[in-house]
């Protein structure tokens, strides 16, 4: 099928285009994904800041933005419909085009082959194709701001009938159609990536790399890919039907007798509840698609900077299996107030309580990995510890939301917003930063600046807790989600001070992120040269040059003789033993 001169890698291309743009090398593709995610993060972050400004100073006039969005911000004052577009696009971009692209696609592509001792992915061409499907998806998403009616405004969950009827809200015109189109491209791309990940991890491991010797990063990416493959089809089916509802007059999700703008809608026979079930069948596992790799990378960073094996490797793998299985039967806890039968709600409550068990096991293993370690508080380590903190704090909020009884009070309030930002915003983002500082020397052959990194960490941590812990309190006080201004409500006026506090925290976080960007690009050009194994880590990627050559290993691919976390072994000469080191005669394999 594909010429395979060395293992699975395609022949080394020499021209600029084949080498850096249309490359089939997993490392180039990984970096391409990462940079794309970074660009999308700038946009998604800017949208969040716009929302914060609007909520703190409702009706503020930003005349220069009025020129960019003449319909959404006439004269620089935001319309309520435009605010809905902002929340929709911020959520969609962050979940699918920032976190997913950077963690799962970016680091996944970069790390999977090199950590299992493969020369490339199983099917490099498919890998390239999956990246080049995401690029138009990004452009379509961004372009949807500038079509008539503006970007989609039905929330990242795209609930019908708001998303199904073009006349329901301006963003439900072209914006929603483009949203569905971009999501379709993204799903196809993600499926291709998932096929590659699972196949590569199962079939292309090097000699001696048994499943129980895999680094946890690979394990978690494996389960993320499996979950994506199992649950995205449900959303695909639903999205196709939503497109039919919108453009071909079917009524899968639109009930009869609906009035919009004083006119009766010609649809009949559908039910919006169906969409909610299908969406959350993907939507809930998607949380784990993002969370699991974040946790896996955190484990790898922790091991390198505590100089001891991760705690409970086997326990973590078992928990991951249980978590993956349970995550597809708890989607209903997003729908407790949808009018579902209380018995069904009880089923989903029990499922959610069950899934806290493997989650708690993983969280405790993260904490216990620190126990008795010889801590090296480098920037990646600080961020890894930050992940543990956020995982714990966010997890506690989840217990309240997973219970139907307390959820009915908290549902649709800022408590939910605070909670999910801790989990799919904080844990993943902090893990992404940890991974970036950790693998940057390997990816680019230079190290990032430690001093800037530490400042970045402390500002981010303070900013993050300021924002989202504050939102928890707002929610407990009954502040509802998705309102574009709260000044009209006498009862909510005392909370305006908290809005100011959250906005200041968000500016702090944004400033810290710019510090990170500066550090990233400055280090790319001026950072100190990195050695092959600057962190004295054990896994396979540290046995090759930084940055690794095409095909990863110049001569023979490596042979693996031990598990991924051989730190501070009693009789070893150094406090780390790479996976490739052959055992002494006495410890020879049976």
């Amino acid at each position, binding site marked *: *099928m594909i010429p395979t001169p060395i293992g699975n890698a395609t022949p080394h291309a020499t021209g600029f285009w084949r080498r850096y743009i249309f490359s089939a090398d997993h490392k180039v593709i990984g970096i391409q994904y990462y940079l794309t995610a970074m660009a999308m993060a700038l946009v998604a972050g800017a949208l969040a800041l716009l929302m914060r400004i609007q909520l703190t100073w409702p009706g503020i006039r930003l005349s220069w933005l009025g020129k960019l969005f003449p319909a959404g911000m006439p004269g620089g004052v935001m319309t309520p419909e435009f605010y809905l577009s902002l929340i929709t696009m911020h959520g969609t971009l962050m979940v699918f085009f920032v976190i997913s692209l950077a963690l799962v696609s970016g680091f996944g592509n970069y790390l999977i082959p090199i950590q299992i001792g493969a020369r490339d992915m*199983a*099917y490099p061409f498919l890998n390239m194709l999956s990246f080049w499907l995401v690029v138009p998806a990004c452009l379509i998403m961004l372009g949807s701001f500038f079509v008539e009616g503006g970007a989609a405004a039905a929330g990242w969950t795209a609930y019908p009938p708001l998303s199904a009827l073009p006349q329901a809200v301006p963003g439900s015109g072209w914006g929603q159609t483009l949203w569905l189109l971009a999501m379709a491209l993204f799903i196809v791309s993600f*499926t291709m990536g*998932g*096929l*590659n990940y*699972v*196949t*590569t991890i*199962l*079939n*292309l*491991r*090097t*000699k*001696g*790399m*048994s*499943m*129980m*010797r895999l680094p946890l990063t690979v394990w978690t990416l494996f389960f993320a890919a499996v979950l994506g*493959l*199992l649950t*995205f*089809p*449900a959303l*695909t*089916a*639903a999205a*196709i*039907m939503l497109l*039919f509802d919108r453009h*071909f*007059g*079917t*009524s*899968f999700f639109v009930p009869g007798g609906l009035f919009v703008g004083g006119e009766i809608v*010609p649809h*009949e*026979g*559908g*039910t919006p509840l*169906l969409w909610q*079930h*299908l969406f959350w069948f993907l939507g809930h596992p998607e949380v784990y698609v993002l969370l699991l790799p974040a946790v896996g990378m955190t484990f790898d960073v922790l091991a390198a900077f505590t100089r001891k094996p991760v705690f409970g490797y086997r326990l973590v793998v078992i928990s991951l299996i249980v978590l993956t299985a349970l995550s597809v039967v708890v989607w209903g806890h997003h729908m407790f107030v949808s009018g579902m039968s209380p018995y069904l709600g009880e089923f989903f409550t029990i499922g959610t309580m069950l899934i806290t068990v493997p989650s708690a096991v993983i969280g405790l293993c993260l904490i216990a990995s620190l126990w008795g370690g010889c801590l090296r508080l480098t920037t990646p380590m600080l961020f890894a510890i930050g992940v543990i903190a956020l995982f714990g704090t966010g997890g506690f909020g989840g217990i309240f939301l997973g219970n139907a009884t307390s959820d009915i009070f908290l549902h649709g309030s800022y408590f939910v917003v605070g909670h999910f930002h801790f989990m799919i915003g904080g844990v993943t983002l902090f893990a992404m930063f940890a991974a970036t500082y950790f693998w940057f020397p390997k990816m680019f052959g230079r190290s990032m600046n430690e001093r800037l990194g530490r400042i970045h960490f402390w500002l981010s941590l303070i900013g993050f807790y300021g924002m989202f812990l504050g939102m928890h309190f707002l929610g407990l006080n009954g502040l509802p989600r998705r309102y574009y201004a709260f000044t009209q409500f006498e009862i909510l006026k005392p909370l305006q001070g908290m809005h100011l506090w959250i906005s200041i925290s968000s500016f702090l976080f944004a400033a810290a992120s710019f510090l990170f960007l500066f550090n990233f690009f400055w280090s790319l050009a001026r950072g100190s040269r990195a050695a092959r194994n600057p962190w004295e880590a054990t896994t396979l990627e540290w046995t090759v040059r930084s940055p690794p050559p095409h095909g990863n290993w110049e001569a023979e691919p490596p042979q*693996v*003789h031990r598990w991924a976390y051989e730190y501070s072994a009693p009789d070893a000469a150094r406090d780390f033993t790479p996976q490739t080191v052959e055992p002494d005669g006495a410890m020879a*394999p*049976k």
Partner: protein
Amino acid sequence: METVQTIERTEAFESPWAGGVSPFKTSWQKLMMWLFIIGDALLFAGFLAIYGFVRLASPSWPNRAEVFHLELIALMTTALISSGATMATAVEAARRGHWRMVVRFLLLTLAGGLAFLGMQAYEWSQFIAAGATLQSNPWGVPPFGASFFLITGFHGAHVSIGIVILLITAVRSATGRSRAGGLELAGLYWAFVDLVWVFIFPLFYLI
């Protein structure tokens, strides 16, 4: 046997699946095809689940015996399932290296697939002539027509893609550029398309 033992001694150092000795000892191409099929099957599962949901939520559902020509559907089903059998024969012939036989059975498979598509087109044209559209139909609730066209259409699209794959495979086999592994992949896809119909057929036409 000799080689397998050598591989196991040298490659699998200790534990299960070490050193690319995969769980199913299968090529990555085949593994990837299986994974794709699982994903695509779940897509159809999604559609059929939606269909079930919509149907249960509807106050009434048209009487299948009045709406469908079950004789035609039986013929369609026979054509598609038979083409599955001829495809399996072609795959086995490729494994034995009988490439003339491969081409012959691929052409038979193509005939079966095309017959199925032709009859489906006829069925669709009958429906449309009777006034059925995506929005409404003369027999009952609107979701009936919508889910009929969407799901059989989606399956028909899969059959059409399969026919393109079979055509390419047939040409490549006739000119000696195919390998047994490639034929097996095409065979897997075609069997999957058959299997999906085995679910659509009873769920739509019988119950």
